């Protein structure tokens, strides 16, 4: 069998399509993008001229860049923390009930499969200044805040709103992953602990949590990268008002610099932002994996 598994032709055949696609559609464009980030794209002559790291130094001086970093990091942290807490909470609670578990699970997971763009438009309407929740609140005498345009504070209100919507949409994914992992834990472990007199909470803390640590790492990596790449929801909810409302994240900043009719077509600058984005993704994945690295316990 060894010979079979070492069949060079087969290996090449199996790997070729994937590797070719990857190189052509990911590697080469990324390299090109890196090159562009070191160039200045002139709109008039449509030419790229090499300018070294100028784009990056310009980025460091650009206030919008720092705002988008701040926002992106906020979403990163909020997403990881809130999805961990709520995903785990829901998963733990749901494993305790039998009837209706599937129904609840499916309902909460459903938004994950729906288009972010459509959901963004939907929630933008809910939080609309004039015709959304505020109308309901006005009905009971409360004046609703400017959900999507209040720019006061370090972390503005629209940020919390959008972070909440993102949580609403994706907590189901984390929940599912945790439920899967929890259901894989051997019941006898729990039984043994109850015989020893442990309460449910203690059992959760000392058995469940450690055993799902690997899944926490996976789920968090997914969260981290997803939140750094965050674009669809913000774009649908705020459109081109992101900059004026200090709501840019790296992805919207990239889009605006590269593709928006307002001050766009700066492909060099946009590519530089892209490089920063990739770097952040790599760093956060690396960090998360280091933190959650555990051996696989015998389950």
């Amino acid at each position, binding site marked *: 069998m060894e010979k079979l598994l070492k069949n060079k032709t087969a290996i090449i055949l199996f790997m070729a399509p994937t590797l070719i696609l990857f190189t052509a559609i990911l590697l080469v464009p990324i390299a090109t993008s890196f090159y562009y980030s070191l160039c200045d794209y002139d709109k008039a002559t*449509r030419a790229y001229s090499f300018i070294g790291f100028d784009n990056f130094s310009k980025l460091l001086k650009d206030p919008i860049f720092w705002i988008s970093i701040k926002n992106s990091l906020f979403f990163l942290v909020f997403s990881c923390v809130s999805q961990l807490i709520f995903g785990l909470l829901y998963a733990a609670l749901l494993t305790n009930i039998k009837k209706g578990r599937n129904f609840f699970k499916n309902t909460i997971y459903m938004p994950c499969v729906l288009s972010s763009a459509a959901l963004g438009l939907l929630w933008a309407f809910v939080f609309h200044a004039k015709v959304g929740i505020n109308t309901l609140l006005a009905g009971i005498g409360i004046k609703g805040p*400017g959900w999507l345009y209040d720019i006061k504070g370090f972390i503005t209100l629209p940020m919390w709103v959008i972070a909440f919507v993102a949580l609403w949409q994706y907590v189901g994914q984390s929940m599912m992953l945790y439920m899967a992992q929890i259901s894989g834990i051997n019941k006898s472990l729990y039984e043994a602990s109850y015989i020893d007199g442990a309460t449910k909470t203690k059992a959760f803390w000392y058995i469940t949590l450690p055993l799902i640590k690997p899944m926490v790492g996976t789920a968090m990596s997914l969260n981290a990268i997803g939140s750094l790449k965050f674009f669809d929801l913000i774009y649908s909810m705020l459109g081109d*008002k992101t900059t004026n409302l200090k709501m840019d994240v790296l992805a919207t900043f990239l889009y605006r610099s590269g593709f928006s009719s307002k001050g766009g077509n700066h492909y060099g600058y946009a590519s530089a932002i892209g490089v920063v984005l990739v770097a952040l993704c790599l760093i956060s994945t690396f960090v998360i994996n280091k933190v959650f690295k555990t051996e696989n316990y015998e389950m």
Partner: protein
Amino acid sequence: MKKLLAVVLAVAMLLGMVSIASADDVQEITWMFWDDLEASSDLITQGFKQVIDRFNADYAGKYHVTPITTQLEPYYTDLNALVDAQKTPDVFIVSPGPNLTDYVAPGIAAPLDEYLEADGWKDTFAGDAVFAQQTYDGKIYAIPLNTAAACVFYNREIFDAAGATVPTTYTELLDACEKIKAYGKTPITISAGTAWCLSMLAGYLCDREGVDLKALNANEASWVNEKTIAAGEKLVELSQYFQETAAGDSNDDATTALYMEDAAILIQGSWAIGQMNGGNPDFEAKCGVFQFPAIEGGNDPNRVIAKSDSLAMSSTTKYPEACIALMKYFTDDIAQKYTAEVGGKIPVTKVEYDADKAPAQLADVMKIFGAASATFGFYNESLVSSDAGSYFDDQMVAMFQKEKTPEQAFQAVQDWYQDYFAKQAEKAE
């Protein structure tokens, strides 16, 4: 399951191949526009759709035009992407000013004088002045399709009930706003979140103060001067009369506030007429129009912000005659009549239209436009580059949000300009 997938794939590929139709001797051209012809409820867009349909019907077998539509936001980016890919649309819409310059300077848009001179096409236009913004070095590079003027729309009923009179000066405007506020309605509705709306107001204030844009663009003056700062301060002063949700309202929301009679005043272009009357048919009778007020001791108050959509032709098009034929359809009597009577925009040709059919507000707008001593463009379309325009917009919004004082905001614009001129000087070496 795999077999099913294979079948589906085969069918799909077959369909794909079938859809690659072969063209005959029909000259195929493309026309690019910034709104969807089917889904939009904008009346001008619907008028354009009729033009396209008429053209394709009348020239069936000879010419055929396929519209390429995008959203407004990514329009220029998409257009540029096509140009980069050597697939410039044969005819495309463009705003005059730096945006048009972006296509004239590198030779992407073709000069149209010879076509205008032939067949007396040029004579159908209302005058040489309509080509003012489309002329570079004496050559005309785009055809204007319609003109819209930015004026002040107001609700007559609210004014009367509040005891406010139509203002002709800035002080009178403030006075009217106070009365309306006391009456309990929002004085001014505006979309401060959509940068160009706010910047339109800023442009008017600057112009009324007497800001000399030509000098600024030639680097012969600084953006930080008493006139700009005075204009900025007035903008901030006016903002106390904006609706509470101004920062978050879209242009749409702001206009709705006017025709739903929540607010009394809207500073907008006449393109909004169709939207207003369509949204609330009762509103047309109550809607009045007045010219943007003068500032005491300031500049000529009869200057009006005007904007015209223009069509340019690609210099690499294979079928210039087809393109010109299409352009002529946009400026023929049927289309221009529609522009006025239904769209509520000002036609560019000498066409006679039925003023009774046209929206009531158009007559008022035409009066203002007719009495105008000169027109000028949106500030964000009249600066040294389109990027400058965006930057200016953002600074105005920052000023409104009280993030920056007028001095700081205009200083930022000045810094940007200095940066720009420095780069231009470098390139010249």
